[in-house]
């Protein structure tokens, strides 16, 4: 199994690592049993993601997808962030090994979970805007979808 240079670049120097003290939204997906958890912190102002950080427990691809996804949503509107798909994340990384594609799904879901949390905190039903397609146990640990 070989990672692209772009994956290794993000793995070696991940962007937006850490927590945000003044975050007003947090999303967490994955589970430790499967070997990956992504947590994304957002500071949203006037519908725009002013700042973002992440914390990830997981393999090289999990860390690289977190890094690239946070880069891609920084400065974007919530609608733009919700439109981020795992395919764009994979493209941005120049591809992922098949067994690691799930990491890009996890990154997409982590962004959605964070935006959903923002809506909830604003008293808005996130279901109106966010389509979570939940990361169930099967998906995390299921065939071909393992991210370790």
């Amino acid at each position, binding site marked *: 199994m070989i990672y692209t240079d772009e994956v290794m670049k993000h793995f070696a120097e991940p962007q937006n690592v*850490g927590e945000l003290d003044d975050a007003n939204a947090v999303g967490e997906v994955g589970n430790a049993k*499967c070997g990956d958890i*992504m*947590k994304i912190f957002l500071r949203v102002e006037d519908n725009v993601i002013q700042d973002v950080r992440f914390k990830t427990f997981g393999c090289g691809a999990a860390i690289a997808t977190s890094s690239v996804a946070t880069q891609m949503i920084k400065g974007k509107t919530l609608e733009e962030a919700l439109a981020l798909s795992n395919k764009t994340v994979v493209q941005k990384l120049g591809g992922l090994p098949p067994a690691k594609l799930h990491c890009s799904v996890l990154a997409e879901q982590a962004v959605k979970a964070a935006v959903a949390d923002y809506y909830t905190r604003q008293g808005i039903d996130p279901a109106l805007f966010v389509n979570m397609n939940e990361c169930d146990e099967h998906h995390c640990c299921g065939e071909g979808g393992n991210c370790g």
Partner: protein
Amino acid sequence: MSNNMAYFDNAATTKISDNVLAAMMPYLTENYGNPSSIYRLGTESWRAVAEARAKVATAINCQPNEIFFTGSGSEANNWAIKGCMENEPQSAVITSAFEHHAVLHVVKKRDNITYLPVYDDGFVRLADFTRALENNPDTALVTIMHANNEIGTIQPIAEIGTICRERGVLFHTDAVQSVGNVHIDVQAMNVDMLSLTGHKFHAMKGVGALYVRKAVQRRLGSFIRGGAQESGKRAGTENVAGIVGLGVAIEEAVSDMERKNAKLLELRQRILNEVAHIPKARLNGAIESRLPNNLNFSFEGIEGEALLLQLDMSGICASSGSACTSGSLDPSHVLLALGLPHEIAHGSLRLTMSKYTTDEEVDLLLTKLPIIVAKLRAMSPMWEG
């Protein structure tokens, strides 16, 4: 190793020793004869194979006609197990939960199979074994590994062997990780069959051997049918160069063992002392009765593949029981068998040394490892630093 590289994955495979390569070279160049041929070029190869067989026999204390060369350790395991299951299709098999896949995936074809549990110290218990035997009076085969490939713990083979011998039950041990690393005496161990492979002790990949005690040879069928090689039990023109290398390597390993292991224990203690300063690091498996070249740690809050990639970026080669690195869905079945939770098993690091491991390599590891663990923990949502 040189150039700021450090190799800590000798349980995966080892570097070929210079003497081994030198001994092999003639059989890869001018001495290319087939050992079955009648002319001198052939008989020279035949003699070389016979000599290697004698060296392997001496190293593990048996007769040359009890050594059968194979194409790998996996093949030796497959042969030992399939070979006796064929003859006893109905009877029970006893093994352990943390065998190598080259054992587990072979025995699982059996209906009646008992997996001895492994405790958190990394050992099976004799009490569990005798109970399993009592519950399965029709047991035909027991296969328990000598040293585990991930945590290096050495199982009570001689004791298990004694019980098997008393009851006339065939006993096989996968000694792939221990041969070349600790003293092996098939008589003292009371084993009927033992698997080994050259690439774990500085011979080449793709050559192994199965020891089969003379008295039980008739109970083990042929593995590959064809020519008369390996007493007709494993056909195929011999891998002469590989076999010659295996013979030299095992001889070297035995003659060098005490000096080498004293050095390895010293290096291992240095690593242990340093890792003791890393919070929430644990050693998997007991330190007693363990291969001198093996350490296996878990670092809470981080995942093994990320750890290996970071180490690799610092020039350090190691391995992990993380699912990510194995291409399977679950983390190491060995660590799970010890009772480790999944998330801890995902964060394991196996470090295995050899006679070539230097103080400088350990220096490099010990400078980088704490920094890397701290770095990965700083980005982990599971770590409350």
